[in-house]
């Protein structure tokens, strides 16, 4: 793991502003910074979502993210790479995931950020369970199903 990598798996909210500041600190050589933030949506598969819980596989999670970042570094010339992922209970509009990448080159920053997200979505051991409003007005918990489109996105990096 590079000393310019940061991987955080946390149960409490994280602060995108602080993450951006950390990415930029002393990174004078890197003119480009691409970031992605995924948040809890209030709607999924036709139902209103009120809450989300994220289960993960402690140990493998960090190992998986470190491997994805190492592969990104082998493909592109990158400066800092920060990946933050929430686990546990979350509310609508809270941030789930942050990926931030700096590079001297804009295309490398964009590509690496998107590559890390694409692989994270299909490989990193996180599972979402959402609480939705059922039709009868009651609340219902359900595991979120994986999307075939996420697997299809991986093909562009093959």
């Amino acid at each position, binding site marked *: 793991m590079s000393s310019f990598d940061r991987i955080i798996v946390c149960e409490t909210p994280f602060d995108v502003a602080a993450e951006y500041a950390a990415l930029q600190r002393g990174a004078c050589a890197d003119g480009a910074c691409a970031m992605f933030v995924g948040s809890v949506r209030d709607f999924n598969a036709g139902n209103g979502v009120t809450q989300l819980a994220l289960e993960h*596989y402690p140990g493998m999670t960090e190992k998986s993210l470190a491997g994805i970042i190492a592969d990104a570094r082998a493909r592109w010339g990158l400066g800092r790479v920060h990946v933050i992922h929430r686990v546990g209970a979350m509310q609508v509009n809270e941030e789930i995931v942050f990926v931030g990448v700096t590079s001297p080159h804009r295309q490398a920053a964009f590509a690496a950020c998107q590559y890390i997200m694409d692989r*994270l979505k*299909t490989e990193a*051991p*996180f*599972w979402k369970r959402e609480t939705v409003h059922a039709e009868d007005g009651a609340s219902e918990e359900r595991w979120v199903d994986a999307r075939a489109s996420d697997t299809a996105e991986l093909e562009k990096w093959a």
Partner: protein
Amino acid sequence: MVKVLFFARLRQQLGTGEVRLENFSGSIAALRDALCDQNPAWRAHLCDDNIRTALNQELVATDCAVAGGDEVAFFPPVTGG
């Protein structure tokens, strides 16, 4: 001893998150079959083609060999991010 973990929907379906197997040797597929022989109700969930397998915290195919001290995990497709 082999440590076997289950996550997410599969953990709920099997009613447990962890089992331990003594004196096992063979592939992950053989380990899965051994578990289903011990718990026939697990077969419908654990032998589903969608279930992913990890050996010592790395994604692997089910023909990988398992040895004493290993950690094997079974789980549904991931849905993070």
